């Protein structure tokens, strides 16, 4: 097994190569505006560092969000196109599950990512492998009180500490592809079938027609 994992659903552009036992190489850069420019360069670098060519990869794992849409789609389009070009399976895992897995916590907790517009994407876990509710998108003040009181990980919790009294600054802020890959490897080894790479938008699209688009050929 050689898994290439990537996630662009948070401000982090993260890539990892995993052989079923351990992470061979990984990369994580935080730049919310340059997912499209950074991702493939990072894939190339990670493969190079691990000394394994792309043709040895057996499957791809990509974070399906929830996350800001434009960045989220960079990872999904990239994974799907690599999968199509090389005839490889592409699996999609919830980005919050990857973050949860990285906490290693054995007790209930909540993961919250920044959803912008004063909202968070959140999910509740019984332990680092088991999601019990979510993912959902809400204003941080509108989370069920018993969820908001749990130990909390993620950039969404850090952004609104007043609503997440259990915030644990020692837990990860963004997802890391290494954790996503490890989670996928574990589930695949257990004979589980992983879901296809479908984006989790959670919100309907803003149905707004832009004005001023015609100016593209001037200046």
């Amino acid at each position, binding site marked *: 097994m050689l898994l290439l994992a990537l996630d662009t659903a948070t401000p982090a552009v993260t890539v990892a190569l995993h052989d079923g036992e351990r992470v061979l190489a990984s990369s994580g850069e935080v730049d919310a505006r340059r997912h499209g420019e950074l991702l*493939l360069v990072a*894939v190339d670098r990670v493969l190079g560092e691990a000394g394994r060519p*792309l043709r040895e990869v057996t499957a791809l794992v990509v974070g399906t969000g929830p996350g800001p849409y434009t960045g989220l789609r960079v990872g999904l389009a990239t994974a799907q196109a690599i999968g199509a*070009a090389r005839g490889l399976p592409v699996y999609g895992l919830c980005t919050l599950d990857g973050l949860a897995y990285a906490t290693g916590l054995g007790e209930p907790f909540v993961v919250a990512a920044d959803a912008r517009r004063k909202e968070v994407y959140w999910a509740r876990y019984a332990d680092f492998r088991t999601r019990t509710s979510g993912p959902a998108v809400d204003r941080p003040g509108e989370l069920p009180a018993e969820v908001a009181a749990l130990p909390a990980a993620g950039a969404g919790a850090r952004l609104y500490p007043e609503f997440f009294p259990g915030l644990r600054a020692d837990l990860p802020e963004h997802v890391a592809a290494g954790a996503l890959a490890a989670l996928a490897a574990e589930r695949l080894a257990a004979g589980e079938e992983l879901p296809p790479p479908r*984006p989790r938008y959670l919100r309907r699209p803003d149905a707004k027609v832009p004005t001023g688009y015609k100016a593209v050929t001037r200046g």
Partner: protein
Amino acid sequence: MADEPLVLGIETSCDETGVGVVRGHTLLADAVASSVDDHARYGGVVPEIASRAHLEEMVPTIERALAEAGVAAADLDAIAVTAGPGLAGALLVGVSAAKAYAYALGKPLYGVNHLASHICVDQLEHGPLPEPTMALLVSGGHSSLLLAPDITADVRPLGATIDDAAGEAFDKVARVLGLGFPGGPAIDRLAREGDPEAVRFPRGLTGPRDAPFDFSFSGLKTAVARWVETQRAAGVAVPVADVAASFQEAVTDVLTRKAIRACRAEGVEHLMIGGGVAANSRLRAMAEERCAAAGITLRVPRPKLCTDNGAMVAALGAEMVARNRQPSAWDLPADSSLPVTRPHVPAGHHH
């Protein structure tokens, strides 16, 4: 010829997910998945709806194009993609997929300019582009006059719309007349039964002191709306076909007049018309008439190649390969305002 470059092109700058395959100047496949129906009730293209549709259709459309062309991905010489201009989020889906696809196949990548592609597509219809070529590009997103001495390296903007694009004016007038979105085909159809001289609508920017090659359609749109409202307020039935024909006549009159004037000013003997509005039957007829009278050779691709499609991107990509232009790098960005003066984005030439 078998040694001409075999190129796959990806286009996602607006609401069409287009993938084309060409060999040199020969069209092998032109697969398009359109989300236009999803936008109809909003009266225009909704970027987020377009981007979501692109992601869903991207890989299936690539596979459909390859099957249609009867070629294997491994045999491609290069992958080309629209790097801009266009809707940022929509472009990014195509650019991400194209980069990944090229990388995974070990093929060179060419990020190309959407507007230059609209011009270059005519090579699939009428063979090599004369150099220089004058191009009139008219669609819902752009209206410009471009001089192209070398479509891979030298494209010069002579003029463009200062307000609405021509296609946008069609959409807005169609809305005034209750004809739905997109407006172009509906107005074209209806205008055939109308009198183009029924109402004399204004021709924007055609005065002696106006910019000779710029366009303005916003005043025309307002004039049509006002005329229709006046009729309705007076309780008179609006002669919809006559209004459509008269509006269309005003648009095509200005477009063709300025295009021919640009050819004369630059001493260019070839005019190509591209973009979605080039599918308009009156524009094609009037351009033919006026070009013939002026001694200018007119080239207009078939309607399906005028609207946004992947074949046009592949056509420009193939020309880049044929002329040994430098490929793009893996950090190629989607550039929503890529200037028309940059037909492609070679490695190290952004930021």
